[in-house]
């Protein structure tokens, strides 16, 4: 596991993060870059610290270039990097350059380069074995199976946090940094990892690996945010966000009477911020539904042209629709023809006595490969399995 031992200097007696203990200063610098909008992967922090150690950082420009080589990945990053660098290290020579005193090991980051921020509360690094990670929140089985519509605010908050850790596992690729001898094969098996993480409720969980294969298929998620979905929409969007952070090649849309693409909004790392941005982008929140029209619009503008080709398309909706059922059937058929698989997630499916009698749902069903529940964590866990395979 690529782990970096950091050491602490004595207290500096200042609030300037640039004057903190050396590696802490580097971590704080990376955090500042992230806040400024740079997307810096976890592994990069370790590489940056390694680079600074190698370059020596006896002057500002060594530090500057060590960061450029390890933290930036596009020319567009450079302006932000420059601005943050100047501001962050403005308070004189960085503490990095000073001799180190006490040696208290601090684990900097995970070895997994695809993992989200190290400060992500749901994650914790361990220092001995690359195969374990901690999932901090411990849900009860009750919460796992509780209908989102019946959750208290606290329970919802807990469920949402869990969702982040669940999809987080989906992103994991084998950890293979520059130490081939310790390299692992296979990507993390979301199905087993997500399950394990939830079941053990906060114990250390081993990551399960599958064999390396092709990169994941594109995943397209369409979430119904109309009035009848009100009790679920936010939770499902959370799930969408988690799925988006968890892997590449994900597209997200919200719909009611019209379709709004949310891929950009969902790319914001912080789920609360992402949800807020999504709320601003969608202007028919909690209104009516026109499923046929919306799926048609998706097909015409994106799906059939390429986005849905060979993709796993997930529609999260109760299927209650005032529009023309024939149109919906027709559009679902078009979609099913190009998609690898169409999954319909219906939060009402679990409601006793619910039959897909809603006209829209009935029209759509013949063109759906999988029809599953989506009302609880356990149900979404099941959805996660559908998505990764």
């Amino acid at each position, binding site marked *: 596991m690529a782990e970096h031992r950091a050491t602490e200097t004595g207290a500096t007696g200042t609030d300037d993060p640039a004057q903190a203990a050396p590696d802490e200063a580097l971590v704080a610098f990376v955090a500042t870059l992230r806040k400024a909008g740079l997307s810096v*992967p976890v592994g990069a922090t370790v590489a940056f610290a390694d*680079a600074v150690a*190698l370059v020596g950082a006896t002057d500002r420009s060594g530090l500057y270039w060590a960061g450029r*080589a390890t933290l*930036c*990945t596009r020319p567009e990053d450079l302006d932000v990097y420059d601005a943050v660098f100047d501001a962050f290290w403005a308070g004189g020579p960085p503490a990095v350059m000073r001799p180190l005193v006490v040696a208290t090991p601090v684990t900097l980051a995970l070895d997994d*380069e*695809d993992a989200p921020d190290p400060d992500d509360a749901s994650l914790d690094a361990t220092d001995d074995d690359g195969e374990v990670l901690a999932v901090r929140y411990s849900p009860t089985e009750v919460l796992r199976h509780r209908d989102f519509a019946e959750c208290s605010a606290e329970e919802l908050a807990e469920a949402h946090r869990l969702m982040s850790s669940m999809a987080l596992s989906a992103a994991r690729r084998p950890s293979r940094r*520059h130490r*081939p001898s310790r390299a692992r094969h296979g990507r993390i098996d979301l199905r087993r990892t997500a399950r394990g993480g939830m079941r053990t409720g906060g114990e250390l969980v081993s990551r399960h690996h599958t064999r390396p294969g092709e990169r994941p298929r594109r995943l397209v998620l369409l979430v119904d945010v109309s009035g009848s979905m009100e009790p679920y929409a936010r939770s499902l969007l959370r799930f969408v966000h988690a799925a988006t952070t968890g892997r590449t090649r994900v597209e997200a849309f919200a719909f009611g009477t019209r379709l709004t693409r949310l891929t950009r909004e969902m790319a914001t790392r912080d789920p609360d911020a992402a949800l807020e941005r999504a709320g601003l982008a969608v202007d028919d929140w909690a209104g009516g539904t026109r499923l046929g029209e919306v799926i048609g619009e998706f097909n015409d503008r994106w799906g059939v042209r390429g986005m849905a080709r060979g993709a796993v398309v997930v529609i999260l909706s109760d299927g209650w629709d005032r529009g023309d059922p024939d149109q919906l059937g027709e559009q679902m058929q078009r979609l099913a023809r190009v998609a690898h698989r169409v999954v319909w997630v219906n939060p009402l499916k679990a409601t006793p006595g619910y039959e897909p009698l809603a006209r829209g749902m009935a029209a759509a069903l013949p063109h759906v490969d999988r029809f599953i529940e989506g009302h609880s964590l356990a149900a979404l866990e099941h959805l996660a399995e559908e998505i990764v395979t």
Partner: protein
Amino acid sequence: MTSPPADPTWSAPDSVAVTADALAAHDYLTDEGLATAVFLALRLQRPLLLEGEAGVGKTEVAKTLATWIGGELIRLQCYEGIDLAQAAYEWDHARQLLHLRTAEATGAAAGASTDDLEHELYDERFLVRRALLRALDHGDGPPPVLLIDELDRADDEFEAFLLEILADYAITVPELGRVAARVPPVVVITSNRTRDLHDALKRRCLYHWVEHPGIEREVAIVRLRAPEVGERLARQVAAATAELRGLGLYKPPGVAETIDWASALALLGQDGVTAETLDATLGTVLKYREDQERVRSNGLESLVADAAARHG
């Protein structure tokens, strides 16, 4: 240009300065940013991703590294549709077939089990080794330099495949097993950025955005690569080129064009750039007719004047 012979006992450099000096000794002039990126790539044994416009000197970095290190330069030029067979390995079907026929003809096949035969067919001698496999499965001595040139031209599926290989410097040939590099090759990936490369790939690499050199460095490059060009001419050519690069041309001149242009002018006995000589040699520095027309209609006199005013 005479370069010092490759050092037989090459080992990764100790510092950025040592890196810059070694590259300069092999006729490549870096700035601190590029030298740092190269240094870190060598020390951290990570691929180096160089992005930038055409002609800024990306490919040349890999070539220079190979001469310095003394390892083989293994170049994989990317193009649309490049795949495993062209990039890594393929089985020589013709020779496999021939082997099978021979076995049949000599009766050797009769006694052998199907398994044995198949085993024989997938013997290493029927394996055609392409760049990626050769770069991993190299012999003793200094590591080769694997140049994956213009990766932006390849499809992104190919990138995914490359990622697997670069992640642990190993490749699995299903019929033979896993081939892992004992000493990882030095990997340089270039992209002209006609499209974005995959984030996952970028994460494996150290990154450097290569810009056109500044005036001083470009003068030095011209003098190094075309020693017949005098200081004054080199400076005026570099200044005029910098001016041309600011015009938003279809294909702004690269470093190679600056060198060619300076040599052409030196050959014509010039020791500076004038509107007349610029007119006569514009084709050396601008390859596209549209660009030439654009510059002419802007006025050659004013270009020369601006260059002198700004960089004189």
